[in-house]
């Protein structure tokens, strides 16, 4: 059966409990793993007051879907959900939620980790951090890479 994929970019607050309810019931899947990424109040030793996420929607959704489809195939996942925020976020807000279902736990853990790692490295989403001293900086993912096909690097 084709894996179920749910990729979204949302401008409103992520309701993580509702996202959990959106996960389908798949009778052949016995493992569920989720990752939630939240806005921290500190980064590289600087006090963060809020974040702005900017998204190149058309390409971000396309690339996110490619990552999820690749992960579903590679890790035999029955469901992959990846939802990311855009706009202004406060400390404590959820920025990203990845949820996967698989037959067994190992594939669920590995598949979930693969999706969040690839999302951070490849999907055109940017983060501006605002600091307590009034300054702001566009931050950079350390794994940002030049164009490359999806691979299993880093597993």
């Amino acid at each position, binding site marked *: 059966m084709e894996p179920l994929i749910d990729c979204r970019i949302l401008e409103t607050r992520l309701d993580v409990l509702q996202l959990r309810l959106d996960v389908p019931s798949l009778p052949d899947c016995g493992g569920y793993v989720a990752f939630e990424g939240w806005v921290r109040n500190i980064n590289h030793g600087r006090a963060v007051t809020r974040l702005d996420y900017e998204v190149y929607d058309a*390409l971000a959704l396309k690339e996110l879907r490619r990552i999820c489809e690749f992960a579903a195939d590679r890790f035999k996942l029955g469901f992959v959900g990846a939802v990311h925020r855009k706009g202004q976020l406060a400390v404590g807000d959820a920025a990203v939620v990845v949820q996967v279902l698989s037959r067994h736990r190992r594939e669920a853990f590995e598949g979930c980790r693969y999706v*969040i790692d690839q999302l951070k490295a490849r999907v055109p989403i*940017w983060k501006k951090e605002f600091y307590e001293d009034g300054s702001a900086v566009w931050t950079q993912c350390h794994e940002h890479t030049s164009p490359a096909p999806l691979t299993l690097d880093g597993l």
Partner: protein
Amino acid sequence: MKATVSIRYFALLRDLAGKSGEDIEVLQGEPASRVYMALAAKYGFPLGLTDIRVAVNDDFSTGDHPLKDGDTLVFIPPVAGG
């Protein structure tokens, strides 16, 4: 021959350009990387060609992509999702 391409700016590049996009005239077949270098000089983009990715018509491409009339062009600075 001239071609008009539509550029969209995001994140750091949008801040430095002071706008979210613009239409510019290029030579038909001009590589995307040459357009980036011209814009980097004009707006003071600090990123080199190895630091950015190129998207043409909402899909990843490469710096040597030959531009044609009506293309949408995005230069992608280092990403930071998650």
